[in-house]
């Protein structure tokens, strides 16, 4: 169920999420730490506070839905699900291994708590829009949250989905942009500059907020504002400015950590930094 935790509590959870995802990726010897770490604070706020979900009943019909459109950041959602108790915590050590429920990209058929399989970029938001339309048509009160990447916003389907969200007045949809500024090959500014994303979301008909995606108070205040502000009949967008690799100094803002696992020494250092809060 939805919680009402303190900022300090959620900051503690975000630390656990970071440690868990680093452990998973280190054990798997592959995975995507950069974009997992950049969204860790947003995800902690969602899974330990905002989302109306029940780990004992992952298919509960009236639950809030969550779509990780940037599916390669799945270590962050697996960490949240493990810490919430959707599956035994020890399973985190099986990431990317044969037979695991924790596939290299999220698989809804295998992993409890995954509402849609993702991994091919740009596709998740349209699915979230479909879920939000279903909720509206069924007069259900559940909401749909989706985290999208700035890199995957190169894809046209993201914008097609926003058009539809706006057309159908989906005020039960919250799109969160993990705006970490880096993509696979280089910075977004070099690969494909997208300009003023806040202005773009607004132009596509979203009620838009712009926040520091690592400031837990700003995150929870924004979620609270959205919760009490649905009469506008507009979908919500949050441009969350984040740092790729956030929380591990040598990973921060380094393109190479998009899809690389830390070795033993790097892992030990990373865990220490996250624990110490640097």
């Amino acid at each position, binding site marked *: 169920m939805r919680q009402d935790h303190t900022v300090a509590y959620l900051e503690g959870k975000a630390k656990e999420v970071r440690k868990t995802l680093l452990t998973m990726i280190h054990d798997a010897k592959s995975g995507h730490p950069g974009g997992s770490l950049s969204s860790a604070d947003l995800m902690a706020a969602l899974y330990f506070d905002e989302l109306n979900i029940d780990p004992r009943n992952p298919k509960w*019909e009236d639950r809030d*839905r969550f779509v990780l459109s940037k599916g390669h950041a799945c270590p962050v959602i697996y960490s949240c699900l493990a810490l919430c108790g959707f599956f035994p915590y020890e399973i985190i050590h099986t990431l990317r291994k044969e037979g695991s429920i924790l596939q290299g990209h999220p*698989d*809804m*058929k295998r992993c409890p708590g995954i*509402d*849609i*399989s*993702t*991994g*091919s970029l740009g*596709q*998740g*938001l*349209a*699915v*979230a*829009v*479909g*879920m*939000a*339309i*279903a*909720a509206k*048509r*069924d007069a259900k009160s559940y909401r749909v949250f989706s985290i999208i990447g700035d890199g995957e916003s190169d894809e*046209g*389907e993201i914008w*097609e*989905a926003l*058009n*539809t969200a706006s057309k*159908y007045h989906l005020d039960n949809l919250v799109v969160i942009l993990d705006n970490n500024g880096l993509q696979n090959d280089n910075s977004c500014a070099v690969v494909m500059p997208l300009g003023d994303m806040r202005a773009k979301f607004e132009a596509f008909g979203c009620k838009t907020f712009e926040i520091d995606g690592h400031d837990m108070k700003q995150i929870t205040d924004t979620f609270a504002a959205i919760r009490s502000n649905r009469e506008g009949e507009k979908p919500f967008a949050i441009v969350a400015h984040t740092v790729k690799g956030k929380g591990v100094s040598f990973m921060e803002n380094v393109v190479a950590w998009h899809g690389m696992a830390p070795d033993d020494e790097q892992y030990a250092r990373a865990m220490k930094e996250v624990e110490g809060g640097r």
Partner: protein
Amino acid sequence: MVGVREGRATREAYGEAILDLGRKDKRIYVVDCDIGKSCKTIPFFKELPEQEVNVGIAEQNACGIAAGLATCGKIPFVTTYAVFGSMRMLEMIRQEVCYPHLNVKIACSHGGFTPANDGASHQCVEDIGVLRTIPNMTVVAPADFDSAKALVKAAAVYDGPVYLRFTRDAAPSVYTSTDSFVIGKAVCLNKGTDITIISSGDVLFKAVLAAQELEAQGISVNLLDMHTVKPLDVAAVEDAMNTTKGIVTVEDHNIINGLGSAVAEVVAERGGFRLKRIGIMDQFGESAPYERLLEMNGITTGEIVREARSFLD
């Protein structure tokens, strides 16, 4: 032997069937892509607007939205033309529908050469091959109005992704409204012992006409409507191999990877049997009459008869 009579376009059968389904079951949704008029879903939208979503000219998005609806218990039919439904949204079908095995149907008009004068951009000669390659996908090509109606209804109660291919123009009728169809099970339209003709979709009538001619010549024809190209009715193909001397396949699709290829896979693995495939000769069409386009590719009654007779030499 069945007869061939004047018929209606199978896209019209889809329009009628989906409206019937939607009235009875509120889980049935149509996801339109601004061609509801051509795909005959306007009556559905007018009567059941709460079960329709029109995303505009944005097929990739349409597929994603259908997947989202399906996760919430709906049975969405994404409605567009075969070219867009099989290729513009292909990777979305793979990732968000087939991989998670969601209950989404892709219902497409303008299959094969049926949009004849629209030209090659709108004629779809690749859809069946492209979609039968994706795990978890079921591929259905009804032949005429009555079978299309029945197969749309069968698809609605079939759990999982289904691709349905309809015609733009009138397709000659072979069936009546009392005939029944099971997805994955071929219909035997004539029992015979000399040769087998297997067809599906809008050119089935050509196979029927050829079978009639062959029977008139004293040749006994085993005639199968393989309306479901995937999963193929392997038992029906094996039975044909056990009881007749050769198989001719006939399709309005590229000769590569369609019905003929699916049958060839079964025949080749067992070996020692004769097969001839008739289909589009790996080339694009052009703006021309439907019959002319088929002729340019040897998809004619005469050619079917000639190939069938060659097995008896």
